[in-house]
């Protein structure tokens, strides 16, 4: 193995470790404190859901009648119901699954006003829910979780817009396209005609990366030279994948007054991410060696290379972002498996902005429940007792996305409408389908390539999975926060198990891997794992 592969990975990890606490402290200052007009959990949840529903309706209308709207230089047509539903759900749920090619299907107006807006709002929704949950766990009087409107406007204006602006300016300076022109016909040096698309990409890419959205301006996403032109944009784009999710761990620690616990969650995520990157890199190298190559370059950009591609593929799936700089279908089987497992775990290793951490909190609740029992105390989290009803909601939130992944995949594999979209058969076919449903229910949005998901069956089915993956988690966590907010906070005593020790991190990782892996081990075995074995045994 080429050890220089480790350099970009090391630089990336170092930057994340340095930047996350800084940004996290700023966010805590921005969103801390109590204000007027605070809402209880029902009002907060109602505001969030109403806001998302309105956004969904607006986006759907916009997509279905884009031909009547301005900024449509390439004459994109209005979308049919199933695709419009799918795209609207996809962007409102921060999934940004795309079963279409952005540059040919959507007008610039749809991209900017429709999708661009939701890129901000869906990200703000995730962070707002996390902040509400944080307040639920840190307060011990009253019933209020904050004001949803104030939280969301502060998140958009104070975090997302300034950061996006910063990133967009750097991106443009690196040569990323940003214009309202129509596509250009150019003659290449070889004398061929080529259509080079244009559009307001850079501004879109910044929030795409920062807000764990992932929906590319171009179909090829960040593998496209106009979407990711230089090594610097590649590094910044990779950083942006988990910058806010990483920072939120520290925000959480500060707001709950349990800084070391916030750090422990961050460390847990970093460790899981590093395990994923390591496994993927290992798999790339042994797989290449097995077929007598130095690197598996199919589906990767030669200018980006193996290490940065694998770093991105692991991070983007860990982070519920879903943007890609290489085609995941062509990754070595186990690297593809890591990408899938990241999504199957529920997008909690950094995960989506806000959603990753509140998903992680569910696993923490599960972990402290078991460890609490094992030290002989009624389980509590941050000093708040965990009762049977909390447990029920935590389990609903953990199971619902997994269930939609398994059921969706099972239906796709056994129905004609499902199967007709598949490019490969056998183990790789299983991976294709599994990936699509994991991506949808995990609200990731990246695609494995190969599967033609722009059919009514997949547009509707995956749309439903995205809704379950988002709201079957948001609703339970807000309910848990609403139940816990008024609960008295138990004093920490010598009998309380600390939630910031290395042992805690180890147990949390164990719980995540065992619960996640047990659910998906059989299907992973039939897909990527057996594929890896076949490859290494020379079965191809």
């Amino acid at each position, binding site marked *: 193995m080429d050890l220089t592969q480790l350099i970009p990975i090391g630089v990336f990890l170092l930057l994340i470790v340095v930047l996350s606490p800084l940004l996290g402290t700023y966010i805590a200052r921005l969103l801390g404190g109590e204000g007027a007009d605070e809402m209880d959990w029902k009002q907060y949840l109602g505001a969030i859901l109403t806001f998302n529903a309105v956004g969904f309706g607006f986006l759907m209308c916009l997509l279905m009648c884009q031909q009547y709207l301005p900024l449509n230089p390439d004459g994109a047509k209005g979308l049919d119901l199933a695709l419009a539903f799918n795209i609207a759900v996809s962007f409102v749920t921060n999934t940004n699954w795309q079963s279409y090619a952005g540059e040919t299907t959507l007008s610039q107006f749809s991209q900017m006003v429709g999708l661009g807006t939701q890129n901000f709002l869906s990200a703000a929704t995730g962070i707002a829910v996390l902040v509400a949950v944080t307040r639920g766990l840190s307060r011990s009087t009253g019933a209020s979780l904050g004001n949803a409107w104030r939280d969301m406007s502060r998140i958009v204006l104070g975090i997302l817009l300034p950061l996006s602006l910063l990133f967009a300016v750097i991106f443009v300076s690196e040569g990323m396209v940003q214009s309202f022109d129509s596509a250009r016909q150019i003659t290449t040096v070889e004398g061929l005609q080529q259509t080079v698309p244009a559009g307001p990409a850079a501004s879109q890419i910044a929030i795409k990366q920062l807000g764990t959205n992932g929906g590319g301006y171009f179909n090829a996403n960040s593998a496209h030279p106009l979407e990711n032109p230089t090594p610097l944009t590649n590094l910044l784009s990779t950083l942006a994948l988990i910058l806010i999710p990483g920072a939120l761990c520290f925000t959480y620690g500060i707001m709950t007054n349990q800084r070391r616990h916030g750090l422990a969650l961050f460390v847990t995520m970093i460790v899981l991410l590093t395990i994923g990157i390591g496994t993927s890199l290992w798999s790339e190298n042994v797989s290449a060696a097995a077929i007598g190559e130095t690197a598996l370059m199919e589906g990767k950009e030669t200018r980006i290379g193996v290490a940065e591609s694998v770093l991105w593929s692991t991070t983007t799936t860990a982070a519920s972002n879903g943007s890609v700089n290489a085609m995941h279908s062509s990754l070595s089987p186990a690297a593809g498996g890591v990408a899938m497992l990241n999504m199957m775990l529920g997008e909690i290793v950094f995960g989506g902005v806000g959603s990753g951490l509140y998903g992680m909190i569910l696993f923490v609740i599960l972990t402290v429940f078991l460890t609490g029992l094992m*030290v002989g105390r009624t389980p509590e989290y941050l000093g708040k007792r965990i009762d049977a009803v909390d447990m029920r909601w935590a389990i609903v939130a953990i199971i619902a996305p997994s269930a939609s992944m398994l059921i969706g995949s099972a239906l796709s594999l056994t129905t004609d409408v499902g199967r007709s979209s598949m490019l490969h058969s056998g183990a790789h*076919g299983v991976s294709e389908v599994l990936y699509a449903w994991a991506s949808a229910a995990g609200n990731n949005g990246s695609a494995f390539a190969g599967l033609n998901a722009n059919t009514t069956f997949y547009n509707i089915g995956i749309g439903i999975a995205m809704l379950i993956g988002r709201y079957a988690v948001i609703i339970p966590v807000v309910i848990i926060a609403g139940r816990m907010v008024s609960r008295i906070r138990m004093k920490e005593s010598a009998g309380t198990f600390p939630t910031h020790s290395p042992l805690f991190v180890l147990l949390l990782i164990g719980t995540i891997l065992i619960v996640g892996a047990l659910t998906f081990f059989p299907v992973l075995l039939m897909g990527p794992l*057996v594929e890896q074995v076949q490859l290494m045994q020379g079965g191809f």
Partner: protein
Amino acid sequence: MAITSSVMSRALIVQALKDGIVKFHPRELRRSPVMAIVAIGAVATSIALIVDITKGSFSGVDLQITLWLWGTVYFANIAESIAEGRGKAQADALRRSRQTTTARKMVHGAEQVVGSSELHVGDLVVCETGDLIPLDGDVIDGIASVDESAITGESAPVIRESGGDRSAVTGGTRVLSDRIVIRISVEPGQAFLDRIIGMVEGAQRQRTPNEIALSTLLIGLTVVFVLVVITLPFFTQYLSSTGNGSADTSISVLMALLVCLIPTTIGGLLSAIGISGMDRLLRSNVVAMSGRAVEAAGDIDVLLLDKTGTITFGNRSASEFLPAPGVSVSDLARAAYTASLADETPEGRSIVHLARHTHNIRDAHEDLRDVVTHAFTAQTRMSGADFVDVSGTSHHVRKGAADAVEAAVVALGGSMPKDVRTAADKVASAGSTPLVVSDGDRVLGVIELKDIVKGGIRERFERLRLMGIRTVMITGDNPLTAAAIAAEAGVDDFIAEAKPEDKLARIRLEQSQGRLVAMIGDGTNDAPALAQADVGVAMNSGTQAAREAGNMIDLDSNPTKLIEIVETGKQLLMTRGALTTFSIANDVSKYFAILPAMFAGLYVGSDGISPMEIFNIMGLASPQSAILSAVIFNALIIIALIPLALRGVTYKPQGVSAVLRRNVLVYGLGGLLIPFVGIKLLDIIISALGLA
């Protein structure tokens, strides 16, 4: 209640084997969702087996899987029956002492014989030597020794008397001597004994909040695995329809996989753990009025206890004579002795005792004339004697609280020497009580009355501290004295000069700061605090009001029993946690046993071997044997863990991290590795016997 101490007796097991069959009734199975799923799986494989037989394709392995699935349910039933059986045996023993008797009811001063079931609250009954006390009540007149062995198992009789904190008597106990009048305080059928029997018998029917939360988790895990197993055939069907070989997704294999994955170990033992937790408490002679109280005991942060009788022996006793300058020790001792002759309080007697034994002063008053003794009264706070000695000098010796004696001396024109005052202060600051002795206007010196801290109490508090529990001592002493005793006994905090309402206030304060509080008490004025505390342990020797207010009753009336109570509470939760972790960790090895076997026909290469074979890391002999081994292991582990469920996991008071590390290593890592070994061994046996 002192029943056999062994975890399981032969008779108990035989009974449990029978009861286990009754528990196959759907109504019983429904109470444990996990085991209900196993039963459904067993029914499904049975039906599939019968269908196969009618088709003429009988499979011996399928039959074995079916039998083991039924066995899994049966083993869980047995575990519950054994736990219940121990409770039933205790209830039966208690019931024997709850016979209906006659009572001598007082009606307008005359006795009237009625059945005990005809008594009502407020009735007065008379009990004399040999009488069985008909119902719970309070002694309002007289004093008697009572045999309470029917309830406590303790054969030594106890004293019950009117007034004070030892007035409560329990129905079913027997008066051994003297005569008492009892005011009945409960209606027939609601007596203490009835409640204990109800608790012991009904233990299995009440699920505690924590048990419900854990069940929720187990149901969640079960749902996940049901989903996994239901969707699995869709994947394999796709693979075989696209020419990638076939997987064995027969009903028996799918059910075997399901039953192995769902948390049957903890699911099967959960109720046994709960029942045996209550049972263990009962064995240490503590009756918990609810399972909730037992669990709360494991969470206690603060323990409030009275100094007197708990930390120290009830009475202070004289330990040293500290003479004033120019006075000999023996003179002081003699004066103190004489001054205490009329003092019948335990303190006064201890002074006499000390003077006699260490200063050899014997009945000196025989030499004295015109002796007039003054008994101790609350008003004078002194006792003493006036007499004329052999030399004809008249004396007026007094002994009492420093300020009272000083006032008396000053009134006679004397004064308190500085050295005596210093000595008195020193005694007080050491946690003892100084008494000053005077003769007329002359101060002779100080008597040190010491509180004797019970032996071994320090170690017990040390143990509580290791469990994370702070101890708070409550005493009526002044702060100086309280601090010294607190230091000697090793308590973390104290409340000095405490009034009864201070206990309640302290409990409320601790609770409002998010702590769980345990309180031990016996007096009527403890009742509000006992009721307010999260765990209120009433002494059985205490008043009826205290016993009603607490949620636990210590039949031995031993205040340090709380350590056992807390340990039992913690053990109960730990056993649940450990077995849940064990159960989940087991799944990894079962996957590695069953999945390669199930998928052995997929992707078969030109060499006739599936790449799945590489995941058969245990090297199990054949797919059939692999599946059978996993199912058998899964069933047998329930039986193997019954003793652990009944006994509880070992608990040593040490830091939480140490406890957790140990349990994670034993039950987490152990749960991961043990089944690999177990399944491999079973596979070797199965292949050797040719069973699959």
